[in-house]
């Protein structure tokens, strides 16, 4: 069976796709503007604390957006023509302003036309905040 051919090796145990990105209030404002998600827990500290949260938390979909970008850039470099087909995320813990987030990827399976990847978004170098599985399908030439 012919596997998806990569321009660069991606089969190491776990790769860091994004490292130490600082979450800022500006990021949350820009994401709220683009997405239309103005839940006050993403910009109003008093309201967030009133809801029992530690403070302002980032949109889960902002974290997923970072994971989407990291995966897409990785695929683009490794094997152009891969298109995201499935993306399943579980938000495990909250990401707050001031956290530094990193995204890692582990290749699970690589067939002739698709690959399965396990992605994690960690905060502050240790705690897993988002766990995600993704399948990318080859739609163009490799």
């Amino acid at each position, binding site marked *: 069976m012919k596997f998806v051919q990569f321009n660069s090796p991606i089969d190491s145990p776990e790769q860091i796709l994004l490292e130490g990105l600082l979450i800022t209030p500006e990021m949350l404002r820009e994401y709220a503007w*683009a997405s239309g998600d103005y839940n006050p827990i993403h910009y109003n500290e008093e309201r967030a604390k009133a809801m029992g949260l530690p403070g302002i938390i980032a949109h889960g979909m902002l974290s997923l957006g970072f994971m989407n970008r990291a995966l897409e850039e990785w695929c683009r470099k490794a094997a152009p023509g891969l298109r995201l087909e499935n993306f399943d995320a579980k938000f495990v813990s909250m990401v707050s302003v001031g956290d530094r987030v990193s995204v890692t990827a582990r290749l699970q399976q690589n067939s002739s036309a698709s690959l399965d990847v396990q992605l994690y978004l960690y905060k502050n170098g240790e705690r897993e905040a988002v766990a995600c599985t993704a399948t990318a399908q080859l739609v163009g030439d490799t």
Partner: protein
Amino acid sequence: MAAQLTTLTAELVGRRYPEFKFFISETWAQDFKHAIGYSLKQIEDPSFVPPTFIACLRDGNFNAFAELGIELSQLLHAGQSYRFYESFRSGDLLSSTTEIVRVLAKKGKTGEMVFMDFLNVFSREERGGERHEPVKVAESLMSVVVRNSR
């Protein structure tokens, strides 16, 4: 008036909400790409739209929350699944439908909560100003936790 959790029951499963339409302008797509950290020079094709842009098309969900009396601050995002069938890009006109597919009350460490899943189906109806038969481009399943307002 925030939603009382006792009003969020399994009887809501199957409830559907009116369709919304979205035109993906290049500016909107650029704003989203910028928000998730793309630099413009990274994108060779300006009409490229990252798949999770579909998270911007949640008017159906916001409409459902409003109809159910759920305040946004009562919500936490627990999970998100996507199935992408066709690509979409700026210049496309998409439509979306929203349906409640799960309602489950639970008692957690912080008190009563209700888990709800919303299924959104997205179809492309127009590309580059040309209308065509609707083509399903994606489905999303959004899992939220609804908590009592404080």
